[in-house]
């Protein structure tokens, strides 16, 4: 026994204890939540039956409804997503530049930009939509701005990180020639972050197509309005058509993004 008395351990005692503490907290939180959350068990038992009922009402779908209302709403949804993504860039690019520590060295600038980026991300796009609906009234403009303001945090944060990973060699070379800050940005940073920029924007556009489909539920335009109307009237066959349209658009957007990414990057 004396020859092999060292015992191999993967984790130290402190690591083990803290891990067990996390597990314990998770279990306690789970038990506490299960006990106090107001779930009516009869509803849960009833769920499969109710769902089957709902799907049976959805079938057969009312395809005649597609050209009359769904198509225009779908185009509107795509417009909201695209224009929202483009407007995001107006705000996100300056914030990303302010957030990158190798471009702006002022700590104050970092805190200001981080504040805007975090608050943009913390507020859900539906909540942004509610805010803009109460400002501009129901309609597309609220949807576009909701998408734009929701995306600022995402695009700004990722773009800022891409800017920080830039190879500083070419920047220093440009500085040494006495280039102005604008040409340093355009000829030094921009070519290096170009692939990251397009991939971030495409990724966000893909997400925005999904998000813009639900904005209509709070009155911000797009397919959601059609969905909400037909749901309030219990026209489930029409709901099914709208859902199918969203499904197809989301899949098409994803295929498009994957192919463009392959081409560009």
């Amino acid at each position, binding site marked *: 026994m004396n020859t092999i008395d060292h015992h191999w351990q993967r984790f130290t005692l402190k690591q083990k204890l803290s891990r067990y503490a*996390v597990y314990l907290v998770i279990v306690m939180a*789970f038990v506490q*939540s299960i006990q106090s959350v107001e779930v009516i068990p009869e509803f*849960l038992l009833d769920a499969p039956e109710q769902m089957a*009922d709902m799907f049976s009402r959805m079938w057969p779908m009312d395809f005649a409804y597609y050209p009359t209302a769904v198509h225009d709403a779908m185009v509107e949804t795509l417009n909201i997503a695209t224009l929202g993504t*483009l407007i995001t860039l107006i705000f996100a690019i300056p914030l990303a530049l302010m957030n990158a520590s190798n471009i702006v060295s002022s700590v104050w600038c970092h805190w200001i930009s981080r504040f805007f980026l975090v608050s943009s991300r913390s507020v859900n796009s539906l909540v942004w939509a509610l805010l803009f609906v109460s400002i*501009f009234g129901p309609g597309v403009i609220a949807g576009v701005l909701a998408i734009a303001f929701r995306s600022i945090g995402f695009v700004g944060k990722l773009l800022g990180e891409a800017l920080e990973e830039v190879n500083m060699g070419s920047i220093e070379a440009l500085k040494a020639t006495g280039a102005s800050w604008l040409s340093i940005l355009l000829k030094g940073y921009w070519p290096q972050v170009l692939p990251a920029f397009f991939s971030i924007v495409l990724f966000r556009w893909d997400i925005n197509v999904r998000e813009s489909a639900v904005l209509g539920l709070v009155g911000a335009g797009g397919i959601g309005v059609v969905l909400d109307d037909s749901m309030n009237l219990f026209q489930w066959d029409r709901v099914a058509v709208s859902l199918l349209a969203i*499904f197809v658009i989301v899949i098409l957007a994803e295929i498009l993004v994957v192919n463009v990414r392959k081409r560009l990057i």
Partner: protein
Amino acid sequence: MAGLNSTRLHSTKDRENPFKHNWFVSALWLLVVCYVVYSFDAMDLSWGRIHSGLGHASDLLARMVPPNFSRWSLLLSGLIESLEIAVISSICGIFISLFLGLFAARNLMPGWVSTPVRTLIALCRTFHPVIIAILFVKSVGFGALAGILTLIVASIGFIAKLFAEAIEEISLKQVEAIRATGAGFTSIILFSVMPQVFARFIGFSTYQLDSNLRNSTMVGIVGAGGLGGTLFSAFQRFDYDFVAAILIVIIALIMFGEFLSNIVRRIFR
């Protein structure tokens, strides 16, 4: 790097200009500009409307300040319900994803297992959580249960996919080593697959807890429980100072969630 071979290096004349004009990219930008003009036209957006909106915005902000915390008991009950929804759905969702992710990994499972599981996961991801929430609200009624089920579906769509991808990237040498000792399937998973992917799995899970916290404050807008319902009704009653209070609480909740998930991530690093 074009232009770096020896013959070209000496002749300065045909050295490639790295900043030369790219007509394709310019055409793309032109297309984007055309699109913006078209969509502004198609959606009836005008500067006049934006201008009048800015007036409304200052009104709204004036009514939001100061935030009104006098109905704190309503706020607190909504907050607790949101938290409960997030906790239950994250734990159930992560637990289910653990298995679904394993079954969806193409390097561990035969095609007839992984393909249907992958389709299921993709289906969970296609629809926005709010749409799923609507369907659940219609089928299981208003309240927290619909929210929990929605966020479980959303969690599966996200974690199971990333988890399956993480498993597909592992080194199979350790799997072979364990298999060579004659270990059964469970032991192979526990001792060769899990140690390689566990850290990343924790990363995905904490991220999902974060986003479930965010989404649990939103599913209430369509009646699936939590703070979102309180928020939506405050909006409809034009109680903008109460709305401001709710928004502050939501942002605080999300920051707290981020702080918590950072701690968990540090412990499991």
